[in-house]
């Protein structure tokens, strides 16, 4: 069995599993945020009206809560949702609630690794489609809707169809001007937005071993954009070190068997990858950054679980140091811990000297919620993950998706720019 099959077999008490088997699996961790949380609360209310008694959760210690989409509260309704969520965690004794304005908080998928909320070998479900992100730590991580999360909160288990696995092998180390974002955009361009529908995308090869943990998280994060159920990478020493820094050394790693089966194996040469951009209105609509060098931009956005981790900000700082932005540019670090590190390491000064506005951690304009949404006809280049019509604001705005390096270089010139072409 491969790693995904072995994790799901262990969690369902089976000795062996094959793709298409349907099983109920025991869940180790469950997450909800300020959008899915109130959604779950609405499901609870519906159940109570039907006569169900809900007094306690299956295991409050395995539940954690983030505030990210509409925080700091964007308006009266989102403020009310935060109150609703806070009352809920208090009522059910959920102690791991990362509240904005009270120390560490941030985007849920960023907290999942920054705070080591999820560990190798675990089954992790979250009320958000980018829950796949955390699979980079060697866990099975998948997104679910409100009803399913409510079910997990009360029962500790949920059904899954065992997915086929597509294996993406990266040979060699990425060149300096290429980031994990370019690699995953290239893959999505190759297989399409439903190219991995219902499947797992696993990454491996010496190029992945060379890659930092944060860069690996960019890969698994955007498996969602290829329709995947989950993304996963086998845990190695880098993962162990990453968790050890966060005080976690005890967990039960799972690795695939020597004869693990994959539906298909794709191979990529790192040296052949180029700075890549997804044009409106789909992540699969890719082109090389150099081929779009006449595209004029209004705005650059550096944020989200995909593109505002610490190393993403470092990449942006590499470009912006000593330069000025030519278009409106905002940077929203994905968590307070990253914001603080950017301050301690002098990144914030580089950003502000360049003319950028730096804002608080939030999903913000990535999902069109607030904090810099786009006007009609505005053109934005963004480190985020989706560029569907209206995703970041007006339905007639346009978003180009790119790596932090490309977005920063483009912010300097006002046009889509390959970082190698920056003077």
């Amino acid at each position, binding site marked *: 069995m491969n790693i995904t099959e072995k994790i799901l077999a262990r969690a369902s008490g089976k000795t062996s599993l094959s793709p298409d088997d349907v099983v109920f699996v025991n869940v180790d961790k469950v997450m909800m945020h300020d959008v899915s949380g109130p959604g779950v609360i609405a499901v609870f209310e519906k159940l109570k009206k039907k006569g169900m008694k809900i007094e306690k959760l299956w295991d409050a210690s395995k539940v954690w809560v983030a505030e990210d989409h509409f925080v700091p509260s964007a308006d009266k*309704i989102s403020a009310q949702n935060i109150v609703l969520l806070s009352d809920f965690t208090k009522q059910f004794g959920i102690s791991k609630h990362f509240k904005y304005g009270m120390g560490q908080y941030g985007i849920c998928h960023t907290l999942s690794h920054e705070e080591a909320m999820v560990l190798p070998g675990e089954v992790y479900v979250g009320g958000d489609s980018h829950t796949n992100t955390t699979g980079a730590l060697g866990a099975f991580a998948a997104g679910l809707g409100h009803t399913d999360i409510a079910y997990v909160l009360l029962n500790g288990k949920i059904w899954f169809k065992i997915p086929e696995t597509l294996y993406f092998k990266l040979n060699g180390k990425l060149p300096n001007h290429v980031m994990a974002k370019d690699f995953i955009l290239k893959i999505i361009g190759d297989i399409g937005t439903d190219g991995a529908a219902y499947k797992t995308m696993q990454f491996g090869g010496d190029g992945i071993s060379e890659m930092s943990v944060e860069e690996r998280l960019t890969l698994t994060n955007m498996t969602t954009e290829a*329709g995947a159920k989950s993304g996963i990478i086998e845990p190695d020493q880098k993962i162990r070190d990453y968790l050890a820094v966060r005080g976690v050394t005890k967990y039960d790693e799972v690795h695939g068997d020597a004869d693990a089966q994959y539906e298909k194996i794709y191979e990529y040469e790192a040296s052949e990858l180029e700075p890549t951009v997804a044009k409106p209105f789909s992540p699969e609509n890719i082109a090389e950054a150099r081929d779009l060098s006449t595209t004029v931009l209004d705005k650059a956005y550096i944020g989200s679980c995909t593109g505002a981790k610490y190393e993403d900000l470092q990449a942006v700082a590499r470009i912006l140091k000593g330069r000025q932005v030519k278009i409106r540019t905002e940077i929203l670090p994905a968590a307070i811990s990253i914001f603080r590190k950017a301050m301690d390491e002098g990144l914030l000064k580089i950003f502000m000297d360049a003319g950028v506005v730096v804002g608080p951690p939030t999903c913000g304009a990535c999902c069109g919620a607030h904090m810099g949404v786009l006007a009609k006809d505005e053109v934005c280049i963004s480190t985020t993950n989706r560029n569907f019509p209206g995703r970041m604001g007006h339905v007639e705005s346009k978003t180009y998706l790119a790596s932090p390096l490309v977005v920063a270089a483009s912010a300097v010139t006002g046009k889509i720019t390959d970082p190698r072409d920056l003077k």
Partner: protein
Amino acid sequence: MKGNVIKYQRDNIDTDVILPGPYLKIHDYNELAKHAMEGLDKDFHSKVKEGDFIVTGRNFGCGSSREHAPIALAYSGIKAVLAVSFARIFYRNAVDGAFLLPIEIDESTYNSISDKDSLEIDTEKNEIKNLTKNQTYKMKPFSELIGKIIAAGGLFNYKL
């Protein structure tokens, strides 16, 4: 189950157009219904009738995990979406929350059905009758567990 078709001749209809991001903070189901399909079809709310079906192409409901998407459609009156394929979270949200039936059809059936056609869906026989065109198509049968959850009326009513 009988109803009329609202057809979208396209693939990859994502949850951002089914229910745009700014409305994610809303959890009043009837209020969500007012904004269903707003990113793609501004006339949807005025033309949709109770019992209607959506017919569309590949990968319907891709993108975010927002359960708002099937909720907004269901509370608009949509009883089933007939698509060549579905994105996984939309599919399970539709079934587990008992909001609407996600029915997989093949390409030729998708091409045969037109906007405003009247259909009758029989999930026992896995058949779709086109009453307007006097044609009969096959639907892909639900898998065993999905069929049981639908029959139970959602995941919370399903007994393990």
